[in-house]
């Protein structure tokens, strides 16, 4: 064991304006979270003098070898039982930033403490024992991170010494973990090997892990970024109190989002009265202080208004142009931590910002035990489970939906005098289609799309897909060209037994490899994929006019070919459908950046891209993890594969779609499938 502190880094004190990053360490019980923190502290020279000797004595007294975890596990029961009971925090200083390391317990009994710690984090490190792999709390913690809104995640495959530092074992775990994570929307997650107890891969590259060329754990920490205050969102100030210590009536609260300046008009919710800001108060009064004229998200302030409108604790001050909604019914995705399950009919306390009232649960859906991956049919959310609720409130309270404002778009539930759950708000009764979460007759498509986005955005892709198919009535069509994304979606449909129309457009010009994959895919999933062909008359005229490879001659000839071979057949495939499911991703090319989860297609149907926020790496790890059949051409540099004469391989670093119609200048390299008629807010792009 290397006991020499790394002298390059100074002790655990911070200078005032280095970034301060909060990182929680999560994972299954005993996988080595506390040990990793202890070792990180040691290797960065953050431990106070005499600490190692103390831990040595404490370990000796219990007859165990030197236990790094005792640095964090300070309670007697924790040391006696060798597990972490409650979360704690400790500072570490790296070369580039100050880090608050948050230790979380992995034992199922203490999930509430894990949530307490994780909710404060900007980023998370997931620790997995190399010998044990993904376990129940590994999954549960990842689900909880997701619902807590923590999107920065990296994985440490720990205890590599227990598997002889074998690279093969690491690769195996890495594939499995990447697959599970991508299903939850954590894409392109960095995964590194380590042996925390021995210091391998923690802050230093050691010979035992010489085969690993990626970052150390410490380097991964430094790659995270701290959360920023939400100054750019609309103004929200939950009112903490109104003070009348002298002749002023000072409204006190913290600005959760937005900015505020003297003279601004504000609205006070839920009642909706408006006034202007007369002053921003502070003590001691400092002449010329910038706070006195304008403040912004993150500051705790006091203000006075020009009009004596009624304001009390629990109100929310908002910008009148972009106000929040006074809701009496909320739909939310929640985690539940109380021993007594949350049921339909349960009465609980509901808090949003500083507003509080009682609420009655009127509906529970999609309850799952995130440790088991198994959906539960139960109309209840048991302890440490997750589900969706609708809750009717005794008083209206001002709330946002989470996708619009993460801080005022979440609720906290208390039960029997104790905080017991919480999660993102998906919808409110004030929203266009109502918080019932069902498609309603006559709802304009755009509103339905908006509602579906609020409902589905926070969900992992397979659940999005399943929910979408349940929520939308009518015929649903999934078009596949057997690309990576399409194959991933087909797999998700198959795994969840979702029976919808699966269609491919056979242009007649596909690669032999694509036809081979088509047949393999049918075999693997035991189903037929419906082929749609060009109309033979039109095709015959096209070839007669332009020649068999006429598309190289001009853009007009190319679009004519695409029209006959793809667009017209697609229109036929979609005729009368309620929704079209596609494998688009927002980052595929500059032009596809406008891709939304649910959009309205100009053909008068919903267009749903369940993988819109995935990266290519996430899709790759997902298909690898599930051993999904793939087009062998991906292996030879083909990224996006369409018709053979019109697709070439791309060089590393070229944009993904550079290999399509490469002879045309970049701009709109689309075949017309995804921009038929150019519906608004849907200006979007392509497939085969």
């Amino acid at each position, binding site marked *: 064991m290397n006991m020499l502190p790394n002298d390059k880094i100074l002790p655990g*004190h*911070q200078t*005032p304006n280095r970034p301060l990053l909060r990182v929680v360490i999560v994972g299954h019980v005993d996988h080595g979270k506390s040990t990793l923190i202890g070792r990180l502290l040691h290797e960065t020279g953050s431990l106070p003098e005499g600490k190692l000797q103390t831990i040595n004595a404490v370990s000796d007294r219990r007859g165990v070898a030197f236990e790094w975890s005792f640095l964090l596990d300070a309670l007697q029961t924790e040391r006696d039982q060798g597990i972490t009971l409650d979360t*704690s925090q400790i500072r570490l200083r790296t070369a580039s930033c100050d880090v608050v390391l948050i230790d979380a317990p992995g034992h199922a009994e203490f999930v509430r403490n894990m949530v*307490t710690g994780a909710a*404060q984090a900007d980023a998370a490190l997931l620790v997995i024992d190399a010998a044990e792999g993904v376990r129940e709390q590994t999954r549960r913690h990842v689900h909880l991170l997701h619902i807590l809104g923590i999107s920065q995640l990296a994985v440490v495959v720990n205890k590599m010494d227990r598997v002889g530092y074998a690279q093969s074992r690491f690769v195996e775990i890495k594939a499995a973990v990447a697959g599970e994570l991508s299903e939850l929307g954590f894409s392109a997650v960095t995964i590194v090997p380590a042996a925390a107890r021995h210091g391998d891969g923690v802050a230093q590259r050691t010979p035992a892990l010489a085969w690993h060329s990626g970052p150390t754990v410490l380097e991964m920490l430094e790659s995270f970024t701290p959360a920023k205050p939400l100054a750019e969102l609309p103004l929200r100030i939950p009112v903490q109190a109104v003070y009348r210590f002298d002749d002023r009536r000072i409204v006190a609260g913290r600005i959760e989002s937005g900015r505020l300046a003297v003279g601004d008009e504000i609205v006070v919710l839920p009642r909706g009265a408006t006034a202007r800001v007369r002053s921003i108060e502070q003590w001691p009064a400092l002449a010329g202080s910038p706070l006195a004229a304008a403040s912004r998200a993150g*500051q*705790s302030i006091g203000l006075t208004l020009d009009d004596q409108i009624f304001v009390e604790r629990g109100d929310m001050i908002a910008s009148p142009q972009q106000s929040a909604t006074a809701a009496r019914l909320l739909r939310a995705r929640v985690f539940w931590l109380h021993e007594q399950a949350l049921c339909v009919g349960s009465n609980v306390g509901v*808090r949003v910002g500083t507003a509080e009232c009682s609420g009655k649960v009127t509906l529970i859906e999609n309850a799952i035990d995130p440790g088991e991956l198994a959906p539960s049919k139960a109309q209840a959310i048991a302890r440490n489970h997750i589900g969706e609720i609708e809750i009717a409130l005794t008083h209206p309270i001002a709330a946002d939906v989470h996708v619009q404002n993460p801080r005022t778009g979440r609720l906290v539930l208390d039960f029997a005098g*104790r905080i017991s759950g919480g999660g993102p708000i998906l919808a409110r009764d004030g929203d266009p289609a109502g918080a019932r979460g069902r498609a309603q007759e006559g709802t304009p498509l755009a509103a339905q799309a908006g509602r579906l986005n609020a409902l589905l955005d926070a969900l992992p892709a397979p659940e999005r897909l399943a929910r979408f198919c349940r929520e939308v009535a009518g015929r649903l069509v999934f078009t596949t060209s057997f690309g990576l994304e399409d194959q991933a979606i087909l797999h998700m449909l198959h795994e969840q037994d979702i029976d919808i129309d699966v269609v491919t457009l056979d242009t007649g010009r596909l690669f032999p490899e694509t036809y081979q994959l088509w047949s393999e895919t049918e075999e693997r999933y035991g189903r037929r994929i419906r082929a749609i062909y060009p109309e033979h008359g039109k095709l015959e005229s096209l070839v007669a006019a332009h020649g068999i490879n006429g598309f190289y001659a001009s853009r007009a000839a190319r679009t004519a070919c695409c029209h006959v071979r793809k667009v017209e057949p697609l229109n036929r495939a979609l005729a009368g459908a309620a929704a079209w499911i596609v494998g688009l991703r927002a980052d595929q090319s500059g032009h596809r950046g406008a891709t939304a989860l649910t959009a309205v297609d100009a053909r008068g149907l919903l267009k749903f891209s369940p993988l819109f926020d995935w990266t290519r790496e996430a899709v790759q790890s997902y298909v690898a993890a599930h051993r999904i059949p793939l087009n062998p051409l991906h292996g030879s540099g083909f990224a996006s594969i369409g018709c053979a004469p019109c697709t070439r391989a791309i060089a590393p670093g070229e944009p993904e779609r550079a290999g399509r119609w490469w002879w045309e200048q970049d701009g709109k390299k689309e075949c017309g499938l995804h921009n038929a008629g150019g519906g608004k807010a849907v200006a979007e792009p392509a497939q085969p």
Partner: protein
Amino acid sequence: MSRLDDLEAQSIFILREAFARLRRIGLLWSLGKDSNVMIWIARKAFFGRVPFPVLHVDTGKKFPEMYAFRERYAVEWNLDLKVEPCPPVEAVDPTLPPAARSAARKTEGLKLALAKYGFDGLIAGIRRDEEPTRAKERVFSLRGIEGRWDVRDQAPEFWDHFNAAPPSGAHMRIHPILHWTEIDIWRYTRREGLPIIPLYLARNGKRYRSLGDTDITFPHASDAASIDDIIAELEATTIPERAGRAMDHEAEDAFERLRVTGYL
């Protein structure tokens, strides 16, 4: 916003939540650097005046400089000061090691004050970086009947929503500067121009980093004669802050036992 502004904004938020959510609260003033910062922030939170009593639970064994500081600033800061005595050491758990037993007098004094005023919330200036069991604290931490801390059953606390409904007879400890570090305290003291007890500055090559009872608190070797010097010293040192507090070091579990029975 600078780091210190962030820390201050969060502390103000917590103090205002405590004042709004609990029935009757008091602030524990140990006269040290941390509780002085806390009182200053409370004055900012409530625009100049601390709107609840400030308690000094007095062991009678503080340094004379500390008493002088108390008398002066209670008046200058317009505090509603309550000085509460502690029972003699004989009234304290005899199984504790000597220094811890001496420190535990404060716990007993606290219990008497709680009963006398009927507080359901006490604001205390502890920090996570001082000591590992303090690092496991909640911002709003329940103390049961007899002031006990049930560390195995702390309630969830997240997104700045706090548990503040203690059953009758119990109370909450509120920790508004839990997230600060020792050097943050000194940087803030310097920035805000706060007064300090001179014992923190070196005299004859020694200074105190943490102030407690005279008989169980020891100075360390230092030449830091100004706040700037203290900050420079802290940037370089690897000696823990509470090294000079005897009760922390008598036995592995001494501090935990103190805290479980109601110590800060």
